């Protein structure tokens, strides 16, 4: 029986040698010896993946890519000697991999996350969490079943200055929770509140058919996506422009921008009940632009995505008792002092290495990550059908629109299954 290093760490968690007390409580210089580090394998090292080689407390041991050149570059770029694979299942199966990091285009995320869950590994997944709502449900099920730790790689709900606000999301959460703005709230995400929807991720129609480059395994690149003749614009840096793999700027930035809003509105366990769109007709294959998407929750809270950048002079958060503008400015006089009397937001688990040790859910996990991905995916479905939709946050189905429900579970290309 192979005894993994990780297994040793887990068993030792009982007593003695290796304490479960978080590093930051123990103090010390924060440097973790290699033998205590968790290990990871990254799937997809053409772009994003390669930016993730370093994460405090983890050590890279393997990478995987379906493009032979990306793979060799990826192996070469590592500080230490690492293994390279072309089949992600081999990486997942490696006993010496503790964490599987999924950095492929979104159409693979769900399937790979479930595979990693089945293998008992912990999972780090790029955003958007899944391309469809159905895949997201399946990831939640699998992670629950097998008890893995799952984190989604968008972090604004707990770290970094949040776009035009000049602060982290924490004071925004504190402000919303204090009730000083009132309820319900309307949040506008667009150019004039500091957010760029990156419309340059649009796809091209009438793609010329090209020969598949020798270094690319196109069949594996596609995986569960429908087979369509190869064209360079479909893959690598520009896959975001195609519905089969992603959802354009909405898919690229959606979770970064929307997840913190879901967090501070306290809506991590529900979804909007309505999505309304204003956009040109979308092509079935190539993602286009859109002007506005409005999400409304049961209690009247709204999230407005201003793609056209025409909503000027609007607060980032508008409430019946007060407003918050970019730069954390407000029309509530003496706001900082008033806020001081309120509690800080509950500290979230923001160190994945800690989550892996304590088995407490990471701040952004498969459940709240599913919810913010669902907001993105609801929008994508509404755009493709070119109409407004109503959604049931409990059954996770659209109401009175079977066409929309057909886009929740989109059967995968055989033999791939999730």
């Amino acid at each position, binding site marked *: 029986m*192979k005894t993994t290093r990780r*297994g040793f760490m*887990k068993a030792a968690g009982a007593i003695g040698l290796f304490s479960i007390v978080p590093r930051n409580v123990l103090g010390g210089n924060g440097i973790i010896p290699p033998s205590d580090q968790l290990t990871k394998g990254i799937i997809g090292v053409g772009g994003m993946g390669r930016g993730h080689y370093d994460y405090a407390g983890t050590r890279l041991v393997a990478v995987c890519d379906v493009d032979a050149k990306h793979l060799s570059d990826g192996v070469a770029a590592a500080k230490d000697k690492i293994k390279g694979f072309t089949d992600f299942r081999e990486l*997942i199966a490696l006993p010496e991999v503790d964490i599987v990091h999924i950095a492929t285009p979104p159409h693979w995320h769900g399937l790979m996350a479930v595979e990693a869950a089945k293998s*008992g590994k912990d999972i780090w997944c790029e955003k958007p969490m899944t391309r469809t709502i159905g895949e997201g449900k399946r990831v939640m099920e699998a992670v*629950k079943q097998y008890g893995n730790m799952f984190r989604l790689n968008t972090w604004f709900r707990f770290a970094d200055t949040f776009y035009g606000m000049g602060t982290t999301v924490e004071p925004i959460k504190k402000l919303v929770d204090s009730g000083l703005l009132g309820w319900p709230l309307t949040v506008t995400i667009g150019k004039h509140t500091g957010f760029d929807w990156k419309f340059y991720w649009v796809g091209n*129609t*009438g793609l010329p058919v090209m020969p598949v480059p020798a270094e690319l395994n196109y069949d594996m690149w596609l995986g569960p996506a429908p087979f369509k003749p190869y064209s360079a614009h479909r893959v690598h840096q520009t896959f975001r422009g195609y519905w089969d793999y992603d959802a354009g700027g909405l898919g690229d930035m959606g979770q970064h921008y929307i997840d913190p809003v879901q967090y501070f509105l306290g809506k991590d366990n529900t979804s909007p009940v309505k999505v309304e769109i204003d956009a040109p007709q979308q*092509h079935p294959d190539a993602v286009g632009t859109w002007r506005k998407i409005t999400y409304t929750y049961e209690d009247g809270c709204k999230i407005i995505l201003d793609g056209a950048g025409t909503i000027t002079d609007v607060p980032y958060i508008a409430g019946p008792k007060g407003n918050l503008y970019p730069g954390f400015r407000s029309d509530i006089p003496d706001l900082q002092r008033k806020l001081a009397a309120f509690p800080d937001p509950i*500290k979230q688990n923001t160190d994945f290495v800690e989550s892996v040790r304590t088995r407490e859910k990471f701040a952004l996990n498969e459940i709240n990550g599913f919810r913010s991905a669902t907001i993105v995916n609801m929008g994508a479905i509404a755009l493709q059908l070119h109409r407004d939709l109503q959604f049931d946050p409990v059954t996770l189905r659209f109401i009175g629109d079977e066409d929309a429900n057909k886009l929740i579970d989109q059967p995968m290309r055989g033999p791939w299954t999730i």
Partner: protein
Amino acid sequence: MKYLCLLLVALFCYTGSHAQTDPNRTVKTKVADLLAQLPAQDATSYNKVMSELLSTGEEGLLQIMALYKEPQQGDNTLIEYAVTGMSRYVKDEQQRKQFVYALLKAFRQTSSKEGQFYLITTLRLVGDEECVKPLIPCLQDERLADVTARTFVTINTNNARAAILDAMKTATGNPLLSVVKAAGDMKISAAETKLLEYVAQNENPVLKQAASDALAQLGTIASLKVLQKEAAAEKYVYDNQWTATEPYLLLLNRLVKEGNKDAVKQAASLNKSCNADNQIHVKSATLRMLVEQKGEAGMALLVKALKSKSRNYRMAALDEANVSFGDKAEALLLTQLNKANDPAKVDLLSYFGTRKDEKAVSQIIPLAQSANKEVAAAAIKALGLIGGADACKALATQFASEDDVILKATEAAFRSFKGNIGETLLAGMDNYSPKGANIAIALLGDRATVAAGEKVFSLLESSDAAKSAAAFDALKGVSQQKDLAKLFPLLNKQTDATRVSAVRNAILTGMATMDKQAKETLLMNEIKNAPAARKTDYYFLLGEVGSTNAQILDELFTLLKSGNDADKKNAVSILKVRTDHSAVISRSLTVANEQKELKALLLPVITTHLSAGTIDAEVAHGYIRRAFELADDNAVKNQLLTLSSNVKSLPSLLFTAQYLDNKDLQQTACVTVMNIALANPKFNSKEVVAALNKVLEVIEGGDSRYFKEAIRKHLSTLAPVEPFKLSAEEQKEGFKVLFDGTNMDSWTGNTAGYICEDGAIVCHPGAGGGGNLYTKEEYGNFNYRFEFMLTPGANNGLGIRTPLEGDAAYVGMELQILDNESPIYATLQPYQYHGSVYGIIPSKRGFLKPVGEWNTQEVIANGNHITVILNGTVIVDGDIAKATKNGTPDHREHPGLFNKKGHIAFLGHGSLVKFKNIRVKSLK
């Protein structure tokens, strides 16, 4: 829209030799018209076009699909917009059926494989039973099997299921894989036997896996036995490339849910035997299956799980308790808390905290005193999450501890503790350890517990340095208006920088509820009592409350110029907080220019204020330019170029574009040029296009690929300027165009301050260094025609027969350009108004259009005879020799008045004025 043209040509060619009266022609025309409107730009037009397309019925659809080409041979974009659009729009059952039959007919008629693929994809969304029979053969087709199988999965009628079952007997290769998968997705139980055959073979592992996965969905106990064998051989680990464990577990889960006794037995046995560290997830999975199947009785299993050595397993069990049993599990698990060993205690505490279980509080409280630090910390965390008065009191007692782990956990718990913690914290203060007390004081300050004011003030003079430091720090939280009387003297007494800062903040809090005027008055009063060393603190406070007092500004600059290092630093930080941005910037620029050694201190002040962003664009650009001239190091220059991004004017863009070749400033310049250009589609001049193309060449960095896309798209949408063209008559007469709206090629001089913008020459006061704009050529006798637009109070001038240097009014001749009606010009001399030969010949007044509108003007200079025609009226018609017979009317020397020739110029740089459509004809 080149594909549109080809398509339409194709459509019309299709009519071939049909007669004019052919009824099909109407449909063809209709279809062509409708396709021309795609993609629809909004919902209204989408609904209209789709509805009309659908109404063209089968005929229309067949015509559209007849044009579908293999992707190598043509562009199907419009077809796809139309057909997919219709499929998503189609409304009632009758319309749907009609549309689907039309799609099926098109399917039969199309020879393009990709076209067939496309149609089947479309059918998945709209099709139903009627699609099944026609598509059955596709289940054997290499290219089409997959999409057909997926379509059948969606349709899922009995015939669809039968077709899949059938195809399993005859399909091979990839089509077989698709069919097998479909059988699983549709849960076709009759497929079990065949699937088991595929699982039994080992030659084709892909098929074996696909069949296993399908059995997981539809299998019975028969499959369970087979899969169990395979999974056991793998030791229930995801070890090989193809795994049987997952399908086995999925099937097991299904059958356990159904209550199958064999399945339940297997699950229990697996749960017992999977203990290796790479099997824990299997142990967890089986636990969850069993627990959910047993309902409430399953809770006992969860309790047992708590005895496991594996944290993963224990936490999985607790998650199951949380998710499946809610409140019911809480009571049971509470009975386990004291019995559990330490690691399990930690997990249980996490559970109770997550559930915010108030009933657990009394049992958790003693655990906060546990000798095991992990347990104690976990208990403290749980109490913080659960909240409530008892938890609050218990947490407060933790401040008696000296242990850092305990204190840190307690502090964290209090920070997010809901409700009023101040009273409780205050009440226990005497029992706290020194370290604990200091943390408690900090919390009282941070939570603005004004009730703690007295205590905090009493601790300021404590002999314990850490305690008094904590007290000072907390002042800003606990101070109220009534404390101000104490705070000002307190400030005046302080010498230590940290304490000074603390009391200042306290004063700000104390004044918070006063209005701005009252704050300023109070501070101006109190400053009189301040010792010299503390005066700047009052300046700081005044700045913080938004005072724009000019005297104080003077004092600050005096300090800056003649104070010591500390004074200078203070002055700078206070200058930064003031809100009179423009005043501070322009003063700073002046002083920095006069005393270059102060540059380094003042540039940060300038950039801080420029970031405030409330300054007029023209003015801001001027400031940025002047600051740039002062800056020595690239860091500041880059900062200024970044700030230019907010000044979205053309001068700002062109100024920045100068640095696109400077390696140290290039990248910032790229982003700024891009931001300004993309925000202003009206900036379409040659210079702007050149700048954007330069950016495309040199921009680098993570987002550069997508920035380049953005710029390319922007460039393709720029409306080219319509160049001004001479009328036929002017062309015949021999006029030459000097400015046609697109370039400044005929001009020289201050081309930084006079720029080509939106088809005009615009004089931007804030741009460039100053000076006139001159024609490159010289003219003697001429007819000069142009248009101009003024802004309120505008003052410019038309220089003629002037050299390239000097004041054209005297070294040549100036024809005044002026906003006559502005009140600031009410008392000028007659020869100073618009159109006058300045100082020589007065003009007629009253013929200018209102400010903001374009005026036309013609100037004829023929020897000594000068004529000016404004908006069709002659306003000057005189002879400069005659006019100066008895000396110049303005009693000034005009040495250049009788020049035979010279340049034509626009003079001065103080006002925003626009010129366009400039042409000249030389006279003999």
